[in-house]
């Protein structure tokens, strides 16, 4: 950092959101819009970073990985708060110090999401193939069968809690299956996945929760270290075997730590995000009957619906980069060493890029230009899988369920985070389609 005195305006627009008020989380787009309008590149004191809210400015950052490092993707505040709490925990309960530091090492190994070139490019070269369109096409049939099986389990009740009965189980089962994890371990898998994201965009975290997260990291570490050894000896037709045996000419094979980091990212990214996408899309459909009618009448519009849901309710509302040199963005000097927060949820509603940005347009020409999967070299590795899961789930749900509505007494609440956007639950009523 050359100088803490910077020229970026500071502004109060995000305060309710950063205080994690439920209403502000639900309508985060309003706070983003105010910020985008007033100060598109703004210093946010509470988060010790610059918030970037315009689409074009974000693209510039995302397409310049040489200047902008991914080493702290969830932001400096999350990292500092976590480190402080871990230090306190170590003093309070030294007997668990070993577990804590081991958990921390696994959680922070630079892999894919939080790695920079050349390591990042090496990781991607080794795993891009695993989620390519032809690979995902081969997974479609079992994914569709899974969607039907989950609907079978609740259809006779004519009601369900959509998050726990469908949108959690669906991607969880898909990613666990792809990794080659036995079905019996699904519940443990979900617990790890939940624990790994508790600190993202939530600075109200308590020490017990953090401790649980690190213990989960260690459990995960041990489980997959053993799995890697098994697959080294006896490879199967699964993602873990693919990664363990992946080779690319002139590239170093992955270390065990890199593999563990990768699997932990597959677990979280393959789960939490698609869960949130599906629930947000169902809510959107129940809130807009004409939209529901349109996709029912013409299911070929479903891929467009998935893109619009991603754009309007991106499960990851923004991630961070660190500037490695002094650089100007949107006319504001970003001093070397500063973190920038790229608010994808804001860029996705930037009227400079999307016409009538707050409305759903199923045939939007640049529908796939949204930032829900990021942009640039870190563009979501699982985007093909996510798109296929979204499309297939909606095809099956709309085929099997009629008169879908939110249950009358339901409270619509979002998870407490200013980075992740997801419903806690979504009670639905429906009738079985004949």
């Amino acid at each position: 950092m050359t100088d803490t005195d910077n020229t970026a305006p500071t502004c109060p627009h995000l305060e309710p959101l950063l205080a994690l008020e439920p209403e502000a989380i639900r309508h985060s787009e309003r706070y983003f819009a105010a910020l985008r309008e007033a100060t598109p590149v703004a210093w946010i004191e509470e988060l010790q970073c610059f918030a970037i809210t315009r689409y074009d400015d974000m693209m510039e950052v995302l397409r310049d990985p040489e200047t902008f490092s991914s080493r702290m993707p969830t932001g400096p505040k999350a990292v500092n708060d976590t480190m402080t709490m871990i230090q306190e925990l170590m003093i309070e309960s030294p007997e668990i110090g070993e577990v804590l530091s081991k958990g921390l090492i696994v959680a922070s190994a630079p892999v894919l999401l939080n790695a920079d070139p050349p390591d990042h490019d090496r990781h991607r070269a080794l795993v891009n193939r695993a989620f390519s369109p032809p690979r995902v096409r081969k997974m479609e049939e079992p994914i569709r069968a899974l969607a039907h099986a989950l609907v079978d389990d609740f259809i006779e009740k004519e009601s369900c809690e959509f998050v726990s009965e469908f949108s959690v189980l669906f991607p969880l089962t898909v990613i666990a299956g792809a990794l080659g994890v036995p079905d019996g371990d699904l519940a443990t898998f979900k617990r790890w996945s939940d624990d790994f994201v508790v600190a993202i965009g939530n600075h109200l975290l308590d020490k017990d929760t953090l401790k649980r997260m690190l213990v989960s990291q260690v459990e995960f570490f041990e489980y997959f270290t053993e799995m890697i050894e098994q697959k080294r000896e006896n490879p199967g037709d699964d993602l873990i075997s693919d990664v363990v045996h992946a080779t690319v000419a002139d590239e170093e094979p992955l270390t065990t730590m890199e593999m563990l980091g990768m699997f932990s990212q597959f677990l979280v990214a393959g789960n939490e995000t698609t869960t949130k996408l599906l629930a947000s899309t169902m809510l959107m459909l129940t809130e807009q009957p004409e939209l529901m009618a349109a996709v029912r009448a013409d299911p070929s519009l479903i891929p467009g619906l998935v893109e619009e849901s991603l754009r309007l309710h991106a499960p990851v509302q923004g991630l961070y980069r660190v500037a490695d040199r002094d650089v100007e963005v949107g006319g504001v000097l970003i001093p070397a060493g500063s973190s920038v927060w790229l608010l994808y949820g804001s860029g996705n509603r930037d009227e400079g890029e999307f016409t009538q940005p707050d409305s759903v347009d199923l045939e939007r020409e640049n529908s796939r230009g949204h930032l829900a999967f990021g942009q640039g070299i870190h563009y979501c590795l699982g985007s093909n899988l996510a798109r296929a899961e979204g499309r297939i789930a909606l095809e099956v749900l709309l085929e099997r369920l009629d008169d879908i509505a939110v249950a009358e007494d339901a409270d619509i609440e979002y998870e407490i985070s200013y980075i992740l956007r997801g419903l806690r639950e979504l009670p639905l009523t429906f009738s079985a389609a004949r």
Partner: protein
Amino acid sequence: MRASIDTTKCLANGLCESLAPGVFAVDEEDGLAHVLVDDLAPAHVAGATQSAKLCPTGAINLEES
């Protein structure tokens, strides 16, 4: 118009093949996008142009032939 792909940048996310199915395809073996045609038919130009614009890593180049 001709299309080419910088395979060092390709991430196999398949945006190109979904936007311009007759022009690009991702190969299962090498996990990279390939151009299927030498010269783009007029009907392919819009999809290819959109692909070049939206490719997350800017791996697609288009030039007049």
